[in-house]
């Protein structure tokens, strides 16, 4: 089976974690197709566009939301490094990994290609050249049907919540906000948002995570292990995909800092899942 990883060329830490987890499962990766980093232009119109984009990014709803969150401005996930003296996870800014994706690929004889757009013909050609059987998504934007049609077996993604209930963004936090169990799901990818058939789900205990950053760090590691395990079981034909019903879940979006506070508070108190109660229709308050 030819396993190929689709990723962003600058997302070293995440991709290296996936590659290492696959290696631990004794799976050989055939290739990596990475989104090339956009080049910087400096024409006057680009500068004006950048200034507008900067203004919009700083004050856009989701831009503001990310300021208080676990995701730092440059997109790096804050990572739990080790246990502190009181037994709680200590959280620190993740530093650059010791190795880049390209260096790792070179060291392990993994073919590497880049594409300016992961939904482009160039990306499709690269995947076809690698005779892709299983495509693994490593933190990429929405992938279109033309790319999803290439792998002979399927495309897999790992999602930071239990599907089908929680689709979309910041779903680990939303799980806690809604009082639901926290976990990860490995699923096949279809053109919808997290609507593909489910292969594997695993609940993760987060009572030992004092805040969102620690929770995300723990879940990040767990989800890459789950993805690697599932890939192995898929190769061994031990998995049966369970299709999702569209109405079985809802799409969630980036959590606002004011609601993140609720999640932080619950984690600080040692979060235990309650019953899932949102989305009821009832009479309005009189």
């Amino acid at each position, binding site marked *: 089976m030819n396993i190929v990883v689709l990723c962003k060329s600058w997302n070293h830490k995440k991709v290296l974690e996936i590659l290492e987890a696959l290696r631990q499962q004794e799976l050989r990766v055939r290739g990596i197709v990475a989104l090339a980093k956009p080049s910087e232009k400096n024409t006057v119109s680009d500068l*004006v566009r950048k*200034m*507008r984009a900067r*203004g*919009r990014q*700083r*004050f*856009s*709803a*989701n*831009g*503001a*939301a990310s300021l208080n969150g676990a995701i730092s401005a440059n997109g790096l996930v804050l990572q739990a490094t080790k246990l502190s003296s009181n037994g709680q996870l200590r959280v620190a800014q993740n530093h650059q990994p010791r190795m880049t994706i390209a260096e790792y690929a070179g060291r392990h004889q993994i073919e590497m290609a880049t594409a300016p757009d992961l939904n482009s013909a160039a990306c499709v050609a690269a995947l076809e050249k690698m005779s892709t059987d299983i495509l693994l998504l490593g933190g990429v934007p929405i992938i279109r049907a033309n790319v999803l049609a290439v792998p002979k077996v399927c495309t897999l993604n790992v999602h930071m919540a239990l599907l089908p209930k929680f689709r979309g963004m910041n779903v680990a936090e*939303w799980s806690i*906000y*809604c009082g639901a169990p926290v976990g990860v799901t490995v699923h096949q990818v279809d053109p919808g948002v997290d609507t593909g058939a489910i292969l594997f789900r695993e609940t993760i205990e987060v009572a030992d995570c004092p805040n969102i950053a620690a929770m995300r760090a723990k879940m990040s590691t767990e989800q890459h292990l789950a993805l690697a395990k599932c890939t192995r079981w898929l190769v061994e034909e031990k998995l049966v995909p369970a299709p999702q019903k569209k109405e079985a879940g*809802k*799409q*969630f*979006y*980036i*959590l*606002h800092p*004011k*609601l993140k*506070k*609720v999640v932080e*508070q*619950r984690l600080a108190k040692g979060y235990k899942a309650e019953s899932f*109660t*949102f*989305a*009821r*229709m*009832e*009479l*309005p*308050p*009189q």
Partner: protein
Amino acid sequence: MHALRTKAKQLRDLVQYRVYRPSHLRIGLQDLFDWRAPAMAVQSNSIHLQAAMNWLCQAQDANDDGGVSARYRLSKGWAASYPETTGYIIPTFFNYSGISKDEQYRQRAIRMADWLLSVQHDDGAFPGHDVSKNSAPRVFNTGQALLGLIRAFRETGKEIYLQASLHAGDWLASVQDADGAWTKFAYYNRSHAYYTAVDWPLLELFVITPKKVYRDTAIKHLDWVLSHQLPNGWFDRGGFKNDEAPFLHTIAYTVNGLLESGGLLQPQQPAANIYVQAALRAAEALLHRFEIRDFMAGQFDRNWKAIATYSCLTGNVQTTFNWLRLYEFTQDPRLLNGALKLNDYVKSTQDLRSSNPGIRGGIKGSQPIWGRYIHYSYPNWAAKFFVDALMREDKLMHALYQREGIV
């Protein structure tokens, strides 16, 4: 030649909108680069609320009649008082008076209601447009004035407001078409889905004087609106004109009228839940559009595709209010989440430091200010809906934080 004409128009605009005034120039430059001061985006709601209320007070004081000036225009300054929006600003002032414990706002609301009595036509209707234009009676404007009169009656118990309300309600019922729509005395003489915002005050009137004609008139129109809703939540006839994509402003009116009407009817008629569900379908479609683009466009087509690059700030705050109300109905936290974000966006467009009292604390019709909806102006209804949305957000967040033990 064309380039010359364009330049000439741009020059004319610069003069017309008085960009030589520093406060106007500043707004123009900020909007050109989409720069909004960082501190403003993170101010507490109470600061933004107070600034908007101060602006509304300025708008009331701009004319001596007790009504609220329709808008501050960069071209000509404050406009004449506007009965329609003065009507629905009245409940906002009563509500804010309750929250701030400041009697001033209550007294101002009563002055507004008294002014409304003075501009009501003999047949019970209220005029369209502001009072400078000597306009013909209008269904929509009468409905909005009715909201203020009913509230004034509830607050003061004075019979005069009730009588004026009944008079307006009777007129509304008398001019309705047989199929439930209003075309006579309607904007552009055509039927509109957003007249659900007339159904709601009629149902409010039915609550205080159980005269069935008010309820029946409202239900007839609500059902007419439902017959114009598509499965994706879209309302046909949702805008001012047939041939243009509706502004978010009128979409939000439609949603609000449906949900408030459904809320009033539900205790007696559980089947009225269909109105709330219809509102929810449209509100969820808007939420999705806003979240995936991280921007709320000012106009949409019937597939909910954004067809504007500007944002209709009035529609934004009306929409956040609707999401917050629907959150109260459904407890779906995604609605609350979206409302918090969109309120933040509008807060970041509010100028808290301008030396110009027509700008300081006001909310623009569009962002940028030259967007198609009420361009180059600060309409009073934008500030009113902004205040409503922030007060509702504060109420819900206070309850949530209290439940969670967050100080």
